[in-house]
């Protein structure tokens, strides 16, 4: 991430952040509306290092804090290598798991082909999410209100929108245990 900072070339020089050639001073008098002044300062910050507040291109004690943050060149490189190794190992583990799952699936499909060719063909048939069978069209015509919405919400061939990336904390209400189907499935 921050490799360039500790390149071999600069090792013998004292730790310094590069200085820009442009130096513009801050305005002293308030000519216009303070809101506009604030916006101007945000967009075009003064970079003369003579103020305690860090409004400018860099913070005033950047060298010192950077030396605090990074122990040494060797330490930084070791940390980077350890991180890449960790990433590699997680990647291998994840790929190995996916491979095991796929192998199970492949084997199951091979067995299904022999055991029930009709189901096998049906499983391999490509699904078009936009396609509607005659039965489904008739059904949607007859339904109204929440039933119709429930049937139309779940599109065959697409993931339901309730499957979403997880957040950092669970929902405040917890899991929804009180769900009741709008269109109850036939249990036989």
């Amino acid at each position: 991430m921050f490799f360039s900072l500790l390149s071999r070339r600069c090792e013998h020089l004292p730790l310094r952040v590069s200085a820009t050639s442009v130096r513009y001073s801050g305005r002293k008098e308030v000519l216009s509306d303070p809101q506009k002044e604030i916006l101007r300062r945000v967009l075009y910050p003064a970079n003369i290092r003579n103020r305690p507040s860090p409004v400018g291109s860099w913070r005033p004690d950047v060298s010192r804090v950077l030396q605090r943050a990074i122990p040494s060149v060797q330490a930084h490189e070791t940390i980077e290598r350890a991180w890449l190794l960790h990433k590699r190992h997680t990647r291998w583990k994840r790929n190995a798991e996916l491979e095991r799952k796929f192998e199970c699936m492949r084997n199951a499909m091979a067995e299904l082909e022999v055991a029930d060719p009709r189901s096998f063909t049906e499983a391999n048939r490509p699904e078009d999410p936009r396609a509607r069978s005659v039965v489904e069209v008739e059904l949607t015509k007859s339904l109204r209100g929440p039933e119709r919405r429930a049937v139309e919400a779940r599109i065959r061939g697409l993931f339901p929108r309730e499957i979403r990336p997880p957040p950092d904390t669970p929902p405040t209400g917890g899991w929804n245990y009180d769900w009741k189907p709008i269109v109850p499935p036939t249990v036989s």
Partner: protein
Amino acid sequence: MLPRRPALQAVRSLATEVGAANNTLHAPTPPLSTTKSAVTRSKPLLEAAVIVNRSPTITRSPSRFEKTFFQYQSRIARALHNPFPYEFYFKQGSPLEAQFNIEERSRERQAFGRLTRTMWDTTEANLEAAKLAKEEVGKRATRFTEADKRKDLRSLDRRGERNLYLVTKSEDSSWSFPRAAIRKGEFLHQTAERALYPHCGVNVDTWLVGRKPIGLYKPAEPTEGHERLVFFYKMHILAGQVEPNGSSAVDFAWLTKEEIKGYVEREYWRGVKDMLSDS
């Protein structure tokens, strides 16, 4: 090696009917036959079992190494980043600004230790105002939930980071994934959709993933002279809770992969473990 039946070849010759994905799954593995001869081999009984999965509800917590690395990178970023336009976001002299300054100072101290030069305005008046204006942030749910504390195996709030799978206990006290036998004229994925409701009630919002099975279990001893094949299908639970009917399904539990190992039979576990997620 069994001779290929002509009906199969007729089905496979229609390339348009069978999708591109089929090619990778089309490996001609010879069907595993038992000691029975080819002539007297009976047709296997097909069953569809359903692996109901509750996906993780919260993000994975970082390991100790990951956390330390992120803190290290944050320190470097904090040293090098372009300054934050404080006066744009906080009105000068406001209690919110004072609150932010206090928090920033503690964050700086945490990152770099005590430095002689402080850059944040922490005058007495501001500190007072900040204390007055301090509001209780709305309580957010914790990652380690009540269900985790109680170790309630039937709860769907437990183990938010992990994938939970439904196992049911049948009347002979064996734990397994809910299953149903195929009916005449039915496709196997339809059997899978049907497998859950008779045992576990209808008050569950579920979604079957595709129409292909994710795995297979073949018990070593064929029951009643017929070979039994159990095809597993993946299903997601999105809302609701399972209600066992008391007869075919006596009890249920939502378990992680390693917990299932302690519940199901050893042979069953060997057939099933590779379909489940480690994390």
